[in-house]
């Protein structure tokens, strides 16, 4: 199953192909150390229809590369392997467990005259290690969020259970990977926070505290509005991956029925509750349904040095979503869900309209002309806050960017440069087109700006960026 999609067709002749997933596999060398038992090492292999010996060969190759590079630096073996046609990424999330992702380089197919087969030109330098390395790590984090560690599955049911779990999880998950649209934001894995005034924020605090008090089963709560985070009771790293799941998988899946017309068959049956707009995004679709199942997805979060297993209840009213996390040892009943629905539904509905109103007021105050005309990406390592005016909208399938991929690549390159040193620095790049790309790193924060100014010189660009910092980020300090 090759996922090749032509990105840009220049004329009739040239065809361009974006990077795509060639294979993805997980192995553990210690499971089949003897000759002839190599297959036992392989815990998961995508695509599954690959011939057994090829699987073994590929795994063996990776093993060898890692082993070989270890001789140079025992603690930091190779992370990626660049070849002409593809690039391989290695990741060892747990002892001896290796995840490998093979990405085919983007390529251009040039037809030849005289009926000769077309020449293929691989663009081997187009993809970034940081971006796909981050994607790989994210795959593991997502698995871990819903299944716990590999080690946990091994303890519970040995290799058999682990392979089952991997199969079940990655079969679906890999289909949602859209390698062609991965970029700097995947490196950051940040969280977009909803801008909000203090008073409304405190109201949300108050709501969360009250719900947690009256429904004492609730251990943690997270609150989102418009797919942006407002409050997280979970720790940062857990929230980061949960946020990724919510915004790229759960919410988009449910927004489509919402966007659908009233009579559309996609629209879920309204539960007959006219008092509020609250509904469960996980668990029962309709509380009134006597057949309704009260089963929620389970997630695993960090707790000191072990893991905590939790039910994930996502409840939404209009644009406000609250995630309630409850210890998995408790069985959730219809009564509990009804209680939650009747308690949270009306309050959340009210809060959602409050936030919406407040947001509109604030927007009116700041004025539409103050809407950023700049294209920028901002990221803060300390609180993982990210903001991008480059990305239009995140959907389940693609994240649309409003700039050319070449510029996105420059951003990625600057980011790599920043990662290399600890110092604060600033990089200004003049791109091939009329664009200027500016990267600024100050302590924990990174800002990337794309400016389109013909005939601008370095000084002017520098001034422009200063102006942007003063207007858009006047409360964030950037060291000069």
């Amino acid at each position, binding site marked *: 199953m090759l996922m090749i999609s032509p990105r840009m067709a220049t004329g009739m002749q040239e065809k361009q192909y974006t990077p795509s997933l060639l294979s993805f596999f997980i192995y553990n060398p210690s499971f089949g150390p003897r000759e002839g038992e190599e297959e036992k090492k392989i815990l998961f292999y995508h695509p599954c229809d690959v011939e057994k010996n090829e699987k073994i060969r590929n795994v063996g190759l990776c093993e060898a590369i890692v082993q070989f590079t270890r001789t140079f630096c025992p603690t930091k073996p190779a992370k990626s392997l660049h070849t002409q046609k593809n690039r391989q990424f290695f990741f060892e999330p747990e002892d001896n467990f290796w995840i490998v992702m093979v990405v085919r380089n983007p390529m251009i197919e040039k037809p030849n005259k005289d009926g000769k087969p077309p020449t293929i030109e691989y663009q081997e330098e187009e993809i970034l290690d940081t971006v796909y390395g981050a994607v790989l790590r994210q795959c593991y984090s997502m698995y871990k969020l819903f299944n716990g560690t590999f080690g946990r599955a091994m303890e519970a049911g040995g290799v058999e259970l682990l392979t089952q779990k991997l199969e079940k999880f990655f079969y679906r998950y890999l289909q949602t990977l859209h390698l062609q649209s991965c970029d700097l934001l995947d490196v950051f894995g940040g969280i977009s*926070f*909803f*801008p*909000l*005034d*203090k*008073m409304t*924020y*405190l*109201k949300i*605090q*108050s709501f969360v*505290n*009250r719900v*947690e*008090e*009256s429904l*004492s089963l609730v251990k943690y709560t997270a609150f989102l509005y418009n797919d942006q985070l*407002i*409050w*997280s*009771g979970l*720790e*940062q790293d857990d*929230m980061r991956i949960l946020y990724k799941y919510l915004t790229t998988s759960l919410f988009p899946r449910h927004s489509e029925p919402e966007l659908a017309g009233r009579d559309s068959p996609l629209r879920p049956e309204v539960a007959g509750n006219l008092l509020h707009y609250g509904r469960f995004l996980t668990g029962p679709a309709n509380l009134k349904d006597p057949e309704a199942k009260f089963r929620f997805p389970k997630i695993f979060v960090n707790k000191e040095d072990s893991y905590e297993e939790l039910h994930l209840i996502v409840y939404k009213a209009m644009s406000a979503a609250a995630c309630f996390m409850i210890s998995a040892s408790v069985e959730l009943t219809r009564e509990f869900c009804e209680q939650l629905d009747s308690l949270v539904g009306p309050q959340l509905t009210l809060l959602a309209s409050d936030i919406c109103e407040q947001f509109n007021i*604030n927007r009116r*105050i*700041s004025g539409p002309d*103050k809407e*950023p005309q700049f294209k920028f990406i*901002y990221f*803060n390592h*300390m*609180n993982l*806050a990210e*903001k991008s005016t480059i990305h239009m909208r995140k959907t389940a399938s693609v994240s649309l960017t409003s700039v050319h991929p070449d510029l996105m690549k420059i951003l990625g390159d600057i980011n790599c440069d920043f990662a290399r040193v600890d110092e604060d620095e600033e990089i200004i790049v003049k791109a091939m087109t009329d664009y200027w790309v500016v990267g600024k790193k100050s*302590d*924990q*924060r990174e800002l990337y700006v794309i400016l389109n100014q013909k005939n601008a010189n370095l000084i002017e660009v520098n001034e422009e960026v200063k102006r942007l910092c003063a207007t*858009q*980020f*006047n*409360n*964030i*300090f950037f*060291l000069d």
Partner: protein
Amino acid sequence: MSDEHYLELCDNPVQFENASSVNNVFFDEANKQVFAVRSGGATGVVVKGPDDKNSVAFRMDDKGEVKCIKFSIGNKILAVQRTSKAVMFCQMNLQCVVLEVSCLCFVFRSLQTKNASVLGFCWTNWNEIVFITDQGIEFYQVFPDKRSVKLLKSQSINVNWYQYCPETAVILLSTTVQGNVLQPFAFRSGTMSKMSKFEIELPVVPKPAKLSLSERDIAMATIYGQLYVMYLKHHSRTANSPSAEVVLYHLPREGACKKSHVLKLNTTGKFALNIVDNLVVVHHQSSQTSLIFDIRLREPDCAVNTHQPVLPARSIHPYRIPLSGPTVVPSQPAVPCQLYSSSWSVFQPDIIISASEGYLWYLQVKLPPTVNLLQDKGKLMDFLLRRRDCKMVILSVCSQILEGGEKGSLPVVATVFDKLNQVYKEYLEAEQTYTLAMESGPSRGSAAQKRPVRTQAVIDQSDMYTHVLSAFTERKGVSHKFIIAVLMEYIRSLNQFQITVQHYLYELVIKTLVQHNLFYMLHQFLQYHVLSDSKPLVRATPQPRLSTANDEIVEVLLSKQQVLGALRFIRSVGGHDNVSARKFLDAAQQTGDQMLFYTVFRFFQQRNQRLRGNPAFNPGEHCEEHVVHFKQLFGEQALMKPATV
């Protein structure tokens, strides 16, 4: 069972010789003086006031039975009424304790209406007196030196009886045959003004008409600064009213009198009224209990101005009378005083007199017992916030609801905080308006503004902090979730009323968060400016750092052992010249990272060099131990030496 008596008689009653066949007792509501007249005054008149200054004793000739006796305001002139036709004035020289007054007397007979009989008189000033006769009202000025009086004003009207409210100097006359048309007059330094009359709705209209409104059922008092006429409306079988009620008529200085409140007594029998701390107290004799009403307390399930008792009926706190006067031997047992006795007389606003026992008490409200009697905490707060000595009780209620930690108490906590802050905000606003007015100079035209009075109901942040919150956050066994929720709720409430949150509250939040390693929460609070007083609106991007929360950021970074980060930060905001070196050195030393300690130490040495031209620390900075530590690690020679000039 805790003490539930929320009413009590005061500890220091006014004692006087009890009424007997030879001793008549009079009470003057205006000066709150009790007159004990022995044998018509011949063997002495003892006057006891609320304090010793108002207590006098004198003798006067016995010229017949005294019907009424009253001092003018300031005890200047004594008026004695013996017959229904005449009143005698005496000028007092109060230098002596016992006076013979007869020589200074002159007798005055009403000149206006020859056949009128005097129902009574009221002093409205030191030398102004109002006579109420059955045929009208007469207002005089008295000149004791000239032994004469001068008529200031009079009005003819048939009067059944009258009531006087000394606080407002308003006299209420009962007129018409049924007596239910009331005509008020107001007096102020030489002027008498007629206020609009009004009619009391009688439960039954008698046929033929006869006097149906008794003076006992009417009382006047000021409640929340407004004058009210209280009418005790007894139940009547024919009028189909199941129980008695008190009807309040609001009597404004100008404008018409309006029926404003109805207090439901839910019982029948004999009642008496008092006003204590703006509460209407209704004593019920047969059940020996009292009810209290707060006319500002809105009843959600009643018509706008109908009120139910605030609390269940309780009797006045048992009172014991020492056996023989104030100079009693301590060992002697005190006798319980019979409460609600039929010999009690009740006067406005808060006076109860037992003539047979010789006591005058002030009635008082005890707030602590109300706390357990009123379950609805929101209502309880409304009630307490309007009482005079409420502060400590309110604070104890706050502690109590936090202590309980019962499920669902957060909404209650929120309600209580909102109520407190509402009052707090009103005070702050009044204070601000006053300050502005003062700054802009004395205003012409408008009357000079009075500085707003800070009542006990103003519970500010430091009160909450010292009496409630700091103890609460340190209490064992309270979940940190609840602590943070409560603190955030308080901060939310303050913000809602646009009150600037004091720094120590933020510190309390930060301390609690740090104690439980909840750094991510802390960071989120900072991000949304919840722990700062900076701009009210978060701009387009949530900001991780705020100039106004610098100290917090430094503290947080230090507590996370990010010493360099903290240093970098404080330098970035230009605060490193004033920052405490000791704090940073401590933190660096604690990490055990020698290079880090070296770096931080050198940083401050350089700072010292730059600021003072000498790298050494000032003794005030208390960095001696760090200097020693540095020498131990890196040797004496590593220290920066002062540059030799």
